[in-house]
Each structure stands twice: as C-alpha cells, then as structure tokens.
C-alpha cells in the first residue's frame, strides 16, 4: 500500500516536472519568436533604406537624362545654324513634337476627372471609381477629335505610353498616378470640347456613374515633354522591297 502511494507520488512529481519543462521551453520559444519579430522590423528598416537609396539614384539618373537632352538640344541648334536646310529643321521640329521631346503650348481643353461622390447603391465600389478604361476612352475621344498632344497628370502621352490599372492607381509611362486625373490636350479647342461633351459621349456616360468630369477650353495650355527615353530594341526601319527580294 505504501509502495503504491509512493508510485503515485512519483507519477505526480514526474508530471509536475514535465509541466515545468514545457513551461520553460514555451516561455523561451515565445521570447525567441518575439525576438524574430524584432529582426523582421529591422529588416523592414533596411529595405526602407534601400528603397530610399534607389529613389535617390533614380533622381540622379533623371538629372543626367535632362542634361543629356539639353546637350542634344544644343547640338541640334548647332546643326540647324550650321547650314542645315530650313525644311530639315522644320521636319526635326515636327518629329520632336511627335516623339515628345519638347514642351508644347497651345489652345486646347483640360479635363478633370474625379471619383464618384454619389451614394453607393449597386454595392460594388469599383463602379464608382475611375478606371484605366475610362481614361483611355477620354483620350481616345480626344485623339479622334484631332488632339495634337495629350498629357495625363503632367505625363506626356506618347504612341508608346501605357495607361494601365495598377491597384488603386493608374500607371502612365511607368509612373503611378491617383485621382483626380487631369487630362490636357492641345488642338482645336471647340472641336475637342464638343467631341467630349456631345450627347451620349464620354462625359455623358461617365457622369451617369456620378464621376465628376469637368471639361474646360483653354487658350494656352502647357504640355510637358516626355520624361523618359525611347529605345527601339526590336523595331527597325524596313528595307526597300527590291533590296529585300535579293
């Protein structure tokens, strides 16, 4: 009887020891895990620093680009002054406008689009936000009405420019922009204005969703030049047919 009782006591003691062991181990592991969280936090800080460095580097590169473009302008002027024909200079000017190499000014319209402020009745938040497709339809309408140069939030829209939904924002020329969106177009102000505001036109349809669209005609709009570089890696000028045939 006595022996049995000792056995029982031993069992309880052993279980108590197990409890103590688990308790200590668990405490240590919890402490270790919170230390790991702290490590993650410091890692976040490191990444933030790296990000800031990358941003600085990007700024530096943009400056470099501006300088290079400035030099290019100087060379062009020199070339024009140095006996280049007037036709050549004119063509160069036309092409720089097309390529977005120069700031442009002229009459046109400014379109301001803001997300809908009306009450949400369909339950789908996305119906009331401006999408890339809305911006594209406005720009398409402007182009169709003969706009010569277009910018979106100060970003020049070129033939190669993308307007793409990236989450809550829209990426244009690799940069992200959020609402409100300001689209400027240089062209015949009246034509552009009428093209946008005609019945069942773009503005009409967008307004049905409560999206605020303000179109104003302006005498003098400034459209900045394209801030990046255009490189052609795959496309090259096609050869003459007879040369290709040989």
């Amino acid at each position, binding site marked *: 009887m006595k022996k*049995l*009782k000792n*056995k*029982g*006591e031993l*069992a*309880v*003691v*052993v*279980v*108590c*020891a*197990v*409890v*103590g*062991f*688990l*308790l*200590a*181990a*668990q*405490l*240590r*592991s*919890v402490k*270790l*895990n919170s230390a*790991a969280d702290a490590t993650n936090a410091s890692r976040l800080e490191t990444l933030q620093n790296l990000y800031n460095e990358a941003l600085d580097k990007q700024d530096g590169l943009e400056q470099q680009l501006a300088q290079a473009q400035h030099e290019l302008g100087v060379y062009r002027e020199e070339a024009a002054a140095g006996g280049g024909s007037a036709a050549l200079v004119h063509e160069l000017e036309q092409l720089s406008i097309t390529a977005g190499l120069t700031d442009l000014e002229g009459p046109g319209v400014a379109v301001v689009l803001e997300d809908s402020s009306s009450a949400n009745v369909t339950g789908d938040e996305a119906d009331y936000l401006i999408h890339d497709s809305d911006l594209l339809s406005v720009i398409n309408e402007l182009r169709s009405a003969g706009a010569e140069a277009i910018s979106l939030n100060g970003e020049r829209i070129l033939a190669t420019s993308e307007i793409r939904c990236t989450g809550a924002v829209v990426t244009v020329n690799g940069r992200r922009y959020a609402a409100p969106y300001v689209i400027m177009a240089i062209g015949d102000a009246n034509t552009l204005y009428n093209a946008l505001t005609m019945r069942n036109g773009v503005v009409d349809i967008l307004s049905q969703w409560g999206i605020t669209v303000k179109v104003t005609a302006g005498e003098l709009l400034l459209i900045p030049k394209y801030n990046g570089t255009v490189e052609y890696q795959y496309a090259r000028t096609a050869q003459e047919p007879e040369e290709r045939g040989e």
Partner: protein
Amino acid sequence: MPELIGLLVGLVAGVLFPWAIPSQYSLYVAAGLLAALDSALGGFRARIKGEFKLDVFLSGTVGNTAIAAFLTWLGQKLGIPLYLAAVVVFGTRMFQNFAEIRRELLTSRQKRDKIGQDIVLEPEDGTK
C-alpha cells in the same frame, strides 16, 4: 512538497534545454502544457483527497495530452481554432481542482479534530 521540487527540476531542465521549440509547434506545446498542468493539479487533488489511482492518473495524463495535441492539429487543418476547446476545458478544470484542493486543505484540520473528538468520545461511551 515533492511536487514543487519536481516543478523546479522541470523548469531548470527547460531553461538548460539546448534547443528552442520551433514556432510552428508552439501551439502544440501550449496545448500539451495545459493538459499536463491540468493532470498535475488533478493528481495533486486526488492524492490530497486520498482517492488517487495510478492507472486513472496516467491514462488521463497521456490521453488528455494526446487529445489536446490532436485537436490542435485538426484545428489547424480545418482552419478552426479547435485548441480553444482544450484551453477552455482545462482552464475550467484547473479552477475546479484548485477549489477542491483549497477546500480540502482548509477543512482537513477541522475534520481531523472532529475525528479526534469522535475517537476521544468513544471510550467515554464505553466506560459509561
């Protein structure tokens, strides 16, 4: 008293244990810990009340721990925090066990005294 010594030994062993428990097993250890704590308190209570049975105690300890670990595992598979069931049950039982231990310890002297009185009283009866 030996229980406290066992607890201390376990604590020291846990602190000196060379490996840390990986974080993904942390939940299992917690559930097992609760089960073991419940068993230890239950065993202590049973010994104080004098109704301790070794086989009941051991089967309870092993079984409860196993079920607690199983519930944790199942909960992780199902996406339901089933280990909460173990937490609630063991937590409640711990309070009950503690209450019984407390009552037993507090009233044991009175009982002893009463038993003593009865024993003292009996010969008096006999003499009469």
